[in-house]
């Protein structure tokens, strides 16, 4: 204590990203903690796919533009997959 605010924000942003990729980019739901696998191939690949589809710079990382985009209101239908 005190709470490490930055670390907490980072975790919640990661949760947001995980949910977004699972809901809209067909990222397989996986019990492994997302934060630990955020640099793994499949996740980076999905981040890049999402950034490309939405017209963002394709960095493979949760950069500020990408974070702002996944916070925006949108349609609930996925962007890829079934």
């Amino acid at each position, binding site marked *: 204590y005190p709470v490490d605010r930055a670390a907490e924000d980072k975790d919640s942003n990661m949760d947001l990203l995980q949910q977004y990729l699972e809901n809209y980019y067909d990222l397989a739901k996986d019990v492994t903690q997302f934060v630990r696998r955020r640099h793994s191939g499949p996740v980076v690949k999905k981040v890049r796919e999402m950034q490309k*589809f*939405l*017209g963002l710079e394709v960095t493979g990382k949760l950069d500020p533009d990408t974070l702002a*985009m996944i916070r925006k*209101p949108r*349609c*609930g*239908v996925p*962007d890829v997959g079934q």
Partner: protein
Amino acid sequence: FTTFPGLPKWRKTHLTYRIVNYTLDLPREAVDSAFEKALKAWEEVTPLTFSKISEGEADIMIFFAVRDHGDFIPFDGPGNVLGHAYAPGPGINGDAHFDDDEQWTKDTSGTNLFLVAAHELGHSLGLYHSADPTALMYPVYNPRTDLTRFHLAQDDVNGIQSLYGPPPMSSPDGPAAPTESVPPEPGTPATCDPALSFDAISSLRGEILFFKDRHFWRKSLRTPEPGFYLISSFWPSLPSGLDAAYEETSKDIVFTFKGNQFWAIRGTEVQAGYPKGIHTLGFPPSVRKIDAALFDKEKEKTYFFVEDKYWRFDEKIQSMEPDFPKKIADDFPGVDSKVDAAFEAFGFYYFFSGSSQLEFDPNAKKVTHVLKTNSWLNC
């Protein structure tokens, strides 16, 4: 644009919709009109038509709901997900659900219902999301959309027409052949090129067709964006590079001319017995081709323009009038150069020569406006 996996689409062109319940954010009539306007946007660019029912099972059932609403995809409270919809098909398919935890508004002070409705109904018709940020089917809501100038992006039109084709030539006897609007490729004429000239122009069942080389623009007065098509995609047997065209509206026939031949087409059907020779209309052998033609529906007479002269054909008695040809400049003061194309609309004659267009008032017998040729193409 993308379509749903498996390409689900409606196998009929007339669809019903029902607004099962209403958000309390707006008066009922505002909700009704938002959905009506949203469906009209799709109706204008396809053969689809929609009618609203108030009870029973409609093709497209529209719900407002919050959180878990019985379809295993709960909404998430204010913000984030605004709505979702299902691809065409029976039961829940085709339905559209809207998150009533949003603040639905007629403007963009909250979440604009018309915009989200038009998007979700795009799904109900079979469109998936688009990666074009200017398209209605882009997944992220754009609160800065100018509602006063809303129209579907070309990507949206290309997408929905890949499923259902373009609107029929507003013909009583069914839709025209499903044909792709051709996105401009290299070597095709650019719609808003200031030097654009036309080969021929004709009305057709309330639309205006602007012919150029192998293509034509099809302008409906209801949609700002003209469609762009290959002539051969509607009329495979017609030649490209036409000389002239006009619609004899009382017969629902468009006559198209090239060289010393002409064709009669009704909708997408070239009539049997054509092409015929232009001399069967009464032209002297010295006339090899005509430059332009326009039909005056009031007088039921067709004007044929050849170099600096013109003939007049009486459509009622199907005969070229005596005492012709006459000098164009004598009877159409201000129309001094060779006419490339011409048509009549709203009681005016429109003459096209090179990159200019003259609006001529046949009663006042004078040119009333000088315009660019592509002023009709939303340039």
